[in-house]
């Protein structure tokens, strides 16, 4: 059983379109992070959300943490080919020592010119 479920697993869109990626769980998280990974490289942190209902924006990317801190979404506006990559959500469960970061399986995004 996957602690963090991401959907969709694959997404292929045209440049200029909008998209939303979801990260869901039945567990409560003290914090949740989004990473972007390009082929041959390690994941790079995009954002951390820690408060239920929190919304953070990073240029065309909008991140939201669910009110109950069990889910999160990533919305990209006017996607560009440079947004292509594997998007990973990762969280620290609230009922733990806080030392373990668990990853979802990722959403592979392809933005076609």
């Amino acid at each position, binding site marked *: 059983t996957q602690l963090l479920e991401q959907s969709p697993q694959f997404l292929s869109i045209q440049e200029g379109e909008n998209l939303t990626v979801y990260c869901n769980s039945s567990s409560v998280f*003290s914090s949740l992070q989004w990473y972007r990974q390009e082929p041959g490289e390690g994941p*790079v942190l995009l954002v951390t959300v*820690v408060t239920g209902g929190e919304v953070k924006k990073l240029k065309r990317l909008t991140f939201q943490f669910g009110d109950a801190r069990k889910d999160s979404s990533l919305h990209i506006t006017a996607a560009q080919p440079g947004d292509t990559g594997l998007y*990973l959500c*990762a969280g620290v469960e609230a009922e733990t020592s*806080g*030392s*373990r970061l668990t*990853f979802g399986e*990722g959403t592979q995004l392809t933005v076609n010119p």
Partner: protein
Amino acid sequence: NAGVTQTPKFRILKIGQSMTLQCTQDMNHNYMYWYRQDPGMGLKLIYYSVGAGITDKGEVPNGYNVSRSTTEDFPLRLELAAPSQTSVYFCASSYSTPSGNTIYFGEGSWLTVV
């Protein structure tokens, strides 16, 4: 700015061989981690350490061992390599708990067991 450095970058092992993946960080981080990533998938935590002399199992520790004799180094040992251990391995570090702290990843080590 070295950050997290892993070696080797690529390695091919025969079934039953053993090897050590080296990881060092120069940011004086207390927490270090080893993850593995299978093609097109997320990362699975193998082992982690919250400080020198302290290590704990993650989600998939079987077949691996670690040690943390210094703050800087966190080697991952594979004993009796198996084809199921073919994967990309990432070492990472953070100053403190991953909740609210940035985790920095190395560039990965590609391991193939044949």
